[in-house]
């Protein structure tokens, strides 16, 4: 065999080796992970901490529907009581591309966006338990890690709604294993709002798109209220629902934050109507 042919043979043999080192068959690409036990308490000292994901999204944001799909996947996987999402329509892509469409951006959402981000921040972007910020590609990993955490705080909320006055009372009971000082925030979110949304590969908005966990208002101020407790705290807060909010789709998101832990605990509560 001539010299050039030997070189050709060795080169041909080497190239597949180089690529074989880096190819992974489809059957070997997925590794099953353990889902955090949603009912377990670590011991009598702590509770399992739920996870709040604040999704800074927008109706002109073509990557945001994919983020909503990821959130939906996490709610199904971990449970709607363990992962609580709120969609904060805000930022440069918050409003719909056509001014005639229903705009889900609120002043409150804009306040939150201006506080955490600036106009060069890409959307969608999320904040997990007020301790981690990330793009949608990282949410599942961040949420999975956050679900391992424990907390000293339990929250229970009962709602009473008056159809006539549209007044909603929220009775809160907080229980803590040790003294706690922090900030209590109560937000109103609404599901199943049909409004325009830009989708990938489409230049016109989809006006049949369903938006969930849409931030509507805060019950107790833009940044909540300071609380201090030794072991328990009861309080009642109220809000009058706006006429265009559908009470059957409203849920109340209650969470407490502390300086060192971010979100200490979060729960979601549907509205109990009083007929």
């Amino acid at each position, binding site marked *: 065999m001539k010299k050039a042919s030997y070189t050709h043979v060795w080169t041909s043999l080497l190239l597949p080796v180089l690529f074989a080192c880096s190819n992974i068959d489809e059957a070997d690409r*997925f590794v099953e992970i353990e889902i955090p036990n949603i009912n377990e308490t670590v011991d009598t000292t702590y509770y399992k901490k739920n996870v709040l994901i604040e999704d800074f999204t927008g109706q002109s*944001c*073509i990557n945001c529907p994919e983020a909503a799909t990821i959130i939906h996947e996490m709610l199904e996987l971990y449970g709607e009581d363990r992962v609580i999402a709120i969609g904060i329509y805000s930022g440069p892509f918050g409003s719909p591309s056509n001014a005639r469409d229903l705009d889900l951006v609120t002043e409150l959402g804009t306040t939150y966006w201006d506080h955490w981000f600036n106009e*060069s921040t890409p959307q969608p972007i999320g904040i997990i338990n007020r301790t981690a910020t990330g793009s949608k590609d990282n949410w599942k990993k961040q949420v999975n890690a956050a679900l391992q955490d424990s907390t000293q705080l339990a929250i229970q909320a009962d709602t009473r709604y008056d159809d006539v006055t549209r007044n909603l009372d929220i009775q809160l009971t907080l229980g803590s294993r040790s003294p706690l000082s922090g900030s209590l925030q109560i937000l109103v979110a609404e599901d199943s709002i049909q409004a325009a949304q*830009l989708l990938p590969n489409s230049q016109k908005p989809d006006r049949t798109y369903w938006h969930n966990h849409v931030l509507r208002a805060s019950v107790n101020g833009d940044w909540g209220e300071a609380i201090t407790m030794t072991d328990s705290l009861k309080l009642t807060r109220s809000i009058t629902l706006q006429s265009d909010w559908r009470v059957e789709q409203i849920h109340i998101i209650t969470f407490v934050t502390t300086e060192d832990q971010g979100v200490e605990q979060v729960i979601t509560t549907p509205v109990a109507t009083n007929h």
Partner: protein
Amino acid sequence: MRISPLLITIPLLATTSSVLAQEHRVQLTGSIQSDMMIAPMTDNAIGAYADSYDNNAFLNNTYADISGQSKYIDFGARFELTQWPMPGFNDVNNHFKGWGLPNIWVKGKNKVGELTLGSLYEQFGSGFILRSYEQRSLGVDNSLMGARIAVNSIKGIQLKVLSGLQRRYWSWNPKSIISGADFNLSIDEWAKGMNENDHHITIGASWVNKYEEADDDILVSGNPNYTHHRLNVPEFVNAWDARLQYQHSSFSLLAEYAAKSGDPNSLNNYTYGKGSAAMISLTYAQSGLSLLAQAKRSENMAFRSIRTSSALCTAGYINHLPAFTLDHTYSLAALYPYATQMEGEWAFQGSAAYNFKRKTTLGGKYGAKIKVNYSLVKGLEHNKDKGLQGTDGISNSFFALGDTYYQDLNLQVDKKLTKSLELHLMYMYQQYNKGVIQSEGGNIYSNIFVAEGKYKFNKQYTLRAEAQYLGTEHESGDWYFGLLELSIAPHFMITASDQIGHTEPAPGQYGDHTHYYNVAFTCNYEAHRLMLSFGRTRAGYNCTGGVCRYVPASKGLTINYNYNF
């Protein structure tokens, strides 16, 4: 990690001084560049907010380079100060904030070849698999910190081998190592007949390997078959490139093909399909006529040192894919610049230019030049659909074309009318798919007209004037631009400009007319250049070679200083 200057400069100086003692002649060169903004102002009409910069009254990006060349040793270093970065460089994670000596290198050379230690800039072929470079206006510096050996002692053969860690802002990721080799052979150096008949052929081949630890927990999202799984990602990603360059007389041809092994990353939705890039480029130039025709197809060729880097972040690219669109210098022509879509695209470009000689019918007394360029970029068959995580992704037929991402046709004429007066005219038609390029909005169709004149009063005074118009029914409507520039040779220049358009208080809404005015005073003295300017800067994208950086609106006094020695 920031490299302490002392850890490198002391042995560097010790090494160089002993060699220099033997070879006395050292040529030093360097530069200082400082871009500064004093007291950025709030201007609600254009969306500029002083508190975006932590209320800092002084912003600057400053770079100071020095390098030395001698017979056997070259060396260099660059000091950077971006602790209070200029607008467009202050992202939410403060990546650009910092100062230090991020670039330092030494090179030993002799007849056999060269050995470089420290910061490396390198490009293999057209950059499809490796391009490390610095582009300050974009905030790009993806140099490698490592070692490179270049051998060029054999006639017609160039061989390079390198390895290093890639710079990403102010750190080098020790968990990701880039290595590569590049080989180029000029065949005509060995075939005497070819050279004598003016046939020049060069073939090249390159290989790059990225090793990145697989310690990310990438949990599968959006794949209904695997809802509680993490991905097993490859630690080694290989890419290779082959090219042929042929030149004969006025004609040249470049054909290049590159491929990459499975490389799940944030941009391809963590799919495992292979990537590829193919390009062919033809040029012809003779007797005042120049022609260019080129085509490129790329698919899944985003090659990054950190697989989980945000898809929207421009940092951390190992390679570079050229845009095949012109980088326009006129303000309105650059209003909607194209950014290479790394997921995949087909790009075509054709241009023709002709110099009409003096004292001909079309050339007139002083000659004239006409140039026409057409660029077209289209998506692949399935545009930006990537497929489910963990799969091989979506397969695109090679020759199938998707949506139009960008196109522009521009015609330029240069004509000297009199001894003192020169004229440059340009017309451009542009289609810009904002939904693809900026992830929001639809197609923007524009007609752009530019007229630029330069009148030389005498040896000392020259006046340049520009008038531009962009007409469109989309986005925020029509734009106008005017500029006057007086040059007072040899040292001074005064410029005043205004760009007028509608604000956009909400997507799809037209606001009031807004003036983006600017006045500037420039002074050149020997190797020094100082420019002071005051005015408004519109929010937009600054792009070079298909890579773009978002620049927010700003208003204030800016100072730019350059010194070269």
